[in-house]
């Protein structure tokens, strides 16, 4: 088959489009959004003061970044925090952990240590027993990424 000039140009443009497509729109950012949707089932997430997320402003070592979540809740049997989803929007995979609380917890507070590949936002979404979702975000600057070589 012989290509004329117009066909050759179209082919080139098509190839360029295919090569660029995976990088458009931030493939990594969308996984955090997908995780949020999977967690909430598409329900509205309120960004208010109910959830607080503590993380260092600057993490020198991305391998162990201490983070803490605290949700303002009486933690009684009819009003408590069911789950808290932790996400990191700049990691190769956004999922970090899902914490399950119960009225026996007494308070919806937990601390752990996580890996951060680069400077990014940590997101915590709490699911309360009344079915509402609340979110908090914290930006962390990472000096040395924590995903190995």
């Amino acid at each position, binding site marked *: 088959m012989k290509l004329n000039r117009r066909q050759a140009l179209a082919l080139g443009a098509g190839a360029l489009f295919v090569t660029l497509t995976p990088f458009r729109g931030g493939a990594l950012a969308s996984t955090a959004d997908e995780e949020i949707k999977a967690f909430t089932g598409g329900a509205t997430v309120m960004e208010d003061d109910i959830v607080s997320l503590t993380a260092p402003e600057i993490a020198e070592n991305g*391998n162990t970044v201490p983070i803490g979540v605290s949700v303002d809740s009486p933690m009684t049997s009819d009003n408590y925090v069911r789950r808290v989803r932790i996400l990191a929007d700049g990691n190769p*995979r956004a*999922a970090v952990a899902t914490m399950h609380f119960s009225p*026996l*917890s*007494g308070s919806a*507070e*937990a601390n752990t240590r996580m890996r951060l590949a680069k400077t990014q936002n940590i997101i915590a979404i709490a699911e309360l027993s009344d079915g509402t979702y609340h979110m908090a975000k914290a930006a962390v600057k990472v000096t040395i990424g924590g*995903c*190995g070589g």
Partner: protein
Amino acid sequence: MAKSKPRVKVPKTAAVGEVITIKTLISHKMESGLRKGKDGNLVPRQIINRFTAEFEGQQIFAVDIDPAISANPFLEFTMKVPGPGEFTFTWVDDDGSVYTKKSKLKIG
């Protein structure tokens, strides 16, 4: 790898209704499955994927863990003391191993 060793820091005595803090740690490499080894191939994932804390058979706190949790996963959480009893802490490894640790709580 060396056998994972769970460690728990929990008070021995507490008052009913008091909110106590529990700290747990288990030695584990938490291989993410995203890292390349010396041979250039991906090192297969092996992490602790689930942690549960129970008191007298009732769940206090549990975590579904993803590879983004650091090596030697540390967890700190709380419990409102309902009375005397026994804690059971459980860690589940990707390879099927289950590590447990128990601790008794007295009222005093």
